């Protein structure tokens, strides 16, 4: 590997590589797609931030609706600490395994380790979804349906929207695994993986808000 050094730059070996976009940069070994990646990753960050505003306002709506149970089941009747904890652990671990996948993409030339970490991440994401759907099903059987009260409407617009994002991210991950299998690690696949990493870590950040405010706040 040759490092790119400017002729009159004596510090080239001590300073980190130029940072092209927010998040993990793949560095000079993946130069071929660096130009488009800069725009696409930054653009994805802008989208992510607009998504953050949607979630933030749904959180605010949820808080204003906390008192509006209309005689129906409230947070302490419907939420379980244990399943919220399991979901939190699944999602947190999947965020870490995606980080490991990013490092495998950056530093290894073979696909095996990358694909293994991605598959682990996918399984954890699907486990999270299965658990969440099981939770919703249980809430439904206890009379916690969206039309029951303002509180439940607000809950079911906030938490399942996050779940829907996770479903989307899982489908994207499967599509990227297909791309890796068919095309190998070509520039569009690499860019896709980097954007999905941002989405995945971001969804974990939103989940911190959900488990703290909705589940822990509701049970205490």
């Amino acid at each position, binding site marked *: 590997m040759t490092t790119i050094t400017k002729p009159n730059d004596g510090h080239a070996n001590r300073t980190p590589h130029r940072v092209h976009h927010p998040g993990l940069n793949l560095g000079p070994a993946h130069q071929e797609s660096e130009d488009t990646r800069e725009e696409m990753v930054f653009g994805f960050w802008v989208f992510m931030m607009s998504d953050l505003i949607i979630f933030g306002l749904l959180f605010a709506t949820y808080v204003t609706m906390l008192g509006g149970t209309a005689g129906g089941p409230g947070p302490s009747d419907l939420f379980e*600490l244990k399943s919220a904890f399991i979901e939190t652990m699944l999602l947190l671990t999947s965020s870490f395994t995606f980080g490991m996948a990013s490092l495998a993409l*950056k530093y290894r030339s073979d696909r095996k380790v990358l694909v293994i970490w991605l598959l682990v991440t996918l399984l954890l994401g699907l486990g999270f979804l299965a658990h969440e759907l099981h939770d919703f099903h249980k809430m439904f059987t206890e009379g916690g349906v969206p039309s029951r009260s303002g509180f439940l409407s607000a809950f079911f617009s906030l938490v399942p929207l996050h779940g829907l994002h996770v479903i989307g991210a899982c489908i994207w991950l499967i599509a990227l695994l297909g791309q890796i299998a068919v095309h190998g690690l070509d520039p569009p696949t690499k860019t896709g993986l980097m954007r999905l990493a941002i989405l995945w870590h971001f969804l974990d*950040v939103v989940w*911190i*808000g959900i488990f703290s405010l909705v589940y*822990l706040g509701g049970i205490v």
Partner: protein
Amino acid sequence: MSHRQLSEQEAREKSSELRSYLWGFGLALILTLIPFGLAAYTQMAAGTLYLVIAGCAVIQIVVHFRFFLHITLARNKREDLQLILFTVLILAIMVGGTLWILFNLYYRMMPDMLP
């Protein structure tokens, strides 16, 4: 070979990035376990517990941005930090305004809705 031949600088970058993910994971675990543990096993006053939960959540969000999303205060990453901070400003105005207006309305017209 499975490993690409890494330059010395890349090898250093790799180990520091791996450390960053491990630190992030460890800190996030601790910051998750504290609020869940307190909620499950202690009889703390609700007010204090809310504060601890909120504090842990805010710190954990910062940890995720720093260690998983690699957003730092470094000079060459200022643009995205500005993007995030601007979004937080917009959020604070809209969320704060929503809560202020609606809870004021509840206070005046629908006291039942107040927590």
